[in-house]
């Protein structure tokens, strides 16, 4: 089924300004949920699905809402990969890659090293009394942790972070900037080389990493498949935990009473994590393509229609979350959509939960006394496909 790149007959057409969406997508999402919960948006070239219930329904029907979207920029940047496959092909790759990211492995195999990485980075900045917690701490931390879990001992945290940025720029290069393509290609070529080297070593000496797990999978996985899937994991694996860390820290620093309560009750860090992921979801939307005619949100869509599941909107749906625009760690526990749903449920969910809520936040807030926002004009929330803080400048009393 080839992709239909125009509006479905009967779908409302809504013009949205991409610059405005990048700045703050939530007012537009609220209007869409109210007036056009499935709308064709010409500047995006897709239908946007914005209500919680409709998104959940679509996620539960992967045989209708296929991940094999044609013409996706992700496919152009990294080649065929499990995010853009359906089962059973997706399942074969996911099963091969997943074991090191399961929660007990994360805690028992990787937890200590995650903590060492965090302490080392904190040692580096603690004496300064001021830093950008996103650029100076969160990004190098999650990149170092990712290199470890993937089994890329031949890459530095800086390599992984730079590769991630270059590929993410490619994944959203709707403007077709040749420089962006070139930097993305250089990054993917470097990853191919690094993965090939480590896969060869892991073949002889299994090390419990993702690469090793894929090399030794029960159902065989080709080297090119390992390379492409490592690229996808690097693409998302840096910005998502980094952005939850940054947004959650920022939200707490602006709410001293909540922060004090959390510091007295460390079990509450888990609530901070889930509420942050709901409130500003690091992944705001992902694409699907219909395998058959299907009606959703009152609009009959023909096979081939392209639909973006806007989880950043579903997580602000006022029919599910009271005062949905507010950050509130005490809200009734209700599943959010930030990790996606169905077979593509975020593979890194347990890694991110552990490194951010069990390690990074408690260490930062415990170690840096008198931590406060520097109120830098550079610190902005930005993005709608991916959303997070551009930086987080803070000061503290350096010992």
């Amino acid at each position, binding site marked *: 089924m080839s992709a239909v790149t125009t509006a479905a007959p009967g779908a409302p057409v809504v013009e949205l300004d991409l610059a405005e969406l990048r700045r703050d997508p939530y007012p537009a999402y609220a209007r869409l949920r109210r007036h056009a919960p499935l709308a064709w948006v010409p500047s995006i070239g897709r239908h946007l699905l914005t209500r919680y219930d409709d998104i959940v329904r679509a*996620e*539960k029907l*992967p045989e209708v809402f296929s991940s094999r979207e044609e013409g996706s920029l992700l496919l152009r940047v990294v080649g065929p990969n499990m995010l853009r496959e359906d089962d059973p092909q997706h*399942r074969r790759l*996911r099963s091969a890659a*997943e074991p090191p990211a*399961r*929660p*007990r*492995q994360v805690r028992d195999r990787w937890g200590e090293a995650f903590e060492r990485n965090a302490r080392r980075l904190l040692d580096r900045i603690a004496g300064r009394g001021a830093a950008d917690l996103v650029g100076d701490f969160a990004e190098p931390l999650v990149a170092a942790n990712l290199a470890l879990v993937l089994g890329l001992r031949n890459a530095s945290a800086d390599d992984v972070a730079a590769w991630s940025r270059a590929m993410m720029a490619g994944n959203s290069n709707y403007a077709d900037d040749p420089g962006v393509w070139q930097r993305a290609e250089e990054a993917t070529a470097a990853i191919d080389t690094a993965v090939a080297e480590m896969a060869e070593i892991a073949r002889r000496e299994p090390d419990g990493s993702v690469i090793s797990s894929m090399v030794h999978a029960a159902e065989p996985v080709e080297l090119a498949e390992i390379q492409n899937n490592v690229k996808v994991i690097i693409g998302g694996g840096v910005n998502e935990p980094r952005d939850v860390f940054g947004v959650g820290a920022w939200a707490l620093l602006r709410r001293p009473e909540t922060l004090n309560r959390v510091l007295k009750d460390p079990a509450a860090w888990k609530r901070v994590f*889930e509420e942050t992921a709901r409130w500003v979801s690091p992944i705001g939307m992902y694409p699907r393509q219909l395998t058959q005619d299907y009606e959703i949100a009152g609009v009959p869509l023909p096979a081939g229609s392209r639909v973006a599941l806007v989880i950043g909107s579903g997580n602000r749906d006022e029919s599910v979350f009271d005062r949905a625009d507010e950050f509130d760690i005490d809200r009734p*526990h*209700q*599943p*959010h959509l930030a*990790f996606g*749903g*169905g*077979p593509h*449920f975020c*593979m890194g*969910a*347990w890694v991110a939960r552990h490194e951010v809520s069990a390690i990074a936040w408690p260490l930062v807030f415990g170690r840096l006394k008198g931590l406060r926002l520097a109120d830098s004009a550079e610190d902005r929330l930005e993005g709608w496909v991916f959303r997070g803080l551009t930086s987080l400048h803070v000061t503290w009393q350096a010992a």
Partner: protein
Amino acid sequence: MPIVIFQSPDGTQRKVSAASGTVLMQAAVSNDVEGIVAECGGNAACATCHVYVEATHAERVGPPGDVEDEMLDFTAAERRPTSRLSCQIELSDALDGLVVQVPEEQV
């Protein structure tokens, strides 16, 4: 078709019938049983379809597999001796009359 009973934390019961070969989670989700979230759609990756099997039925249902056992350490509600992920329990006539409790929370 086996019949299974879901008991919610407030004591109300839902009786659901499902074809042999379907998993317990699917029987819950298809019948809108409250409190079974199943974010990952049945792949033992999210730990949000947790149930407590009634003690008298536990032997019939059997113990969790390795991957499920790991996930059960990370459920939102406390793990108990008869905790299972409902996506890993395949229904059959042998499980007709099964009673499970839905925990207070899944997330």
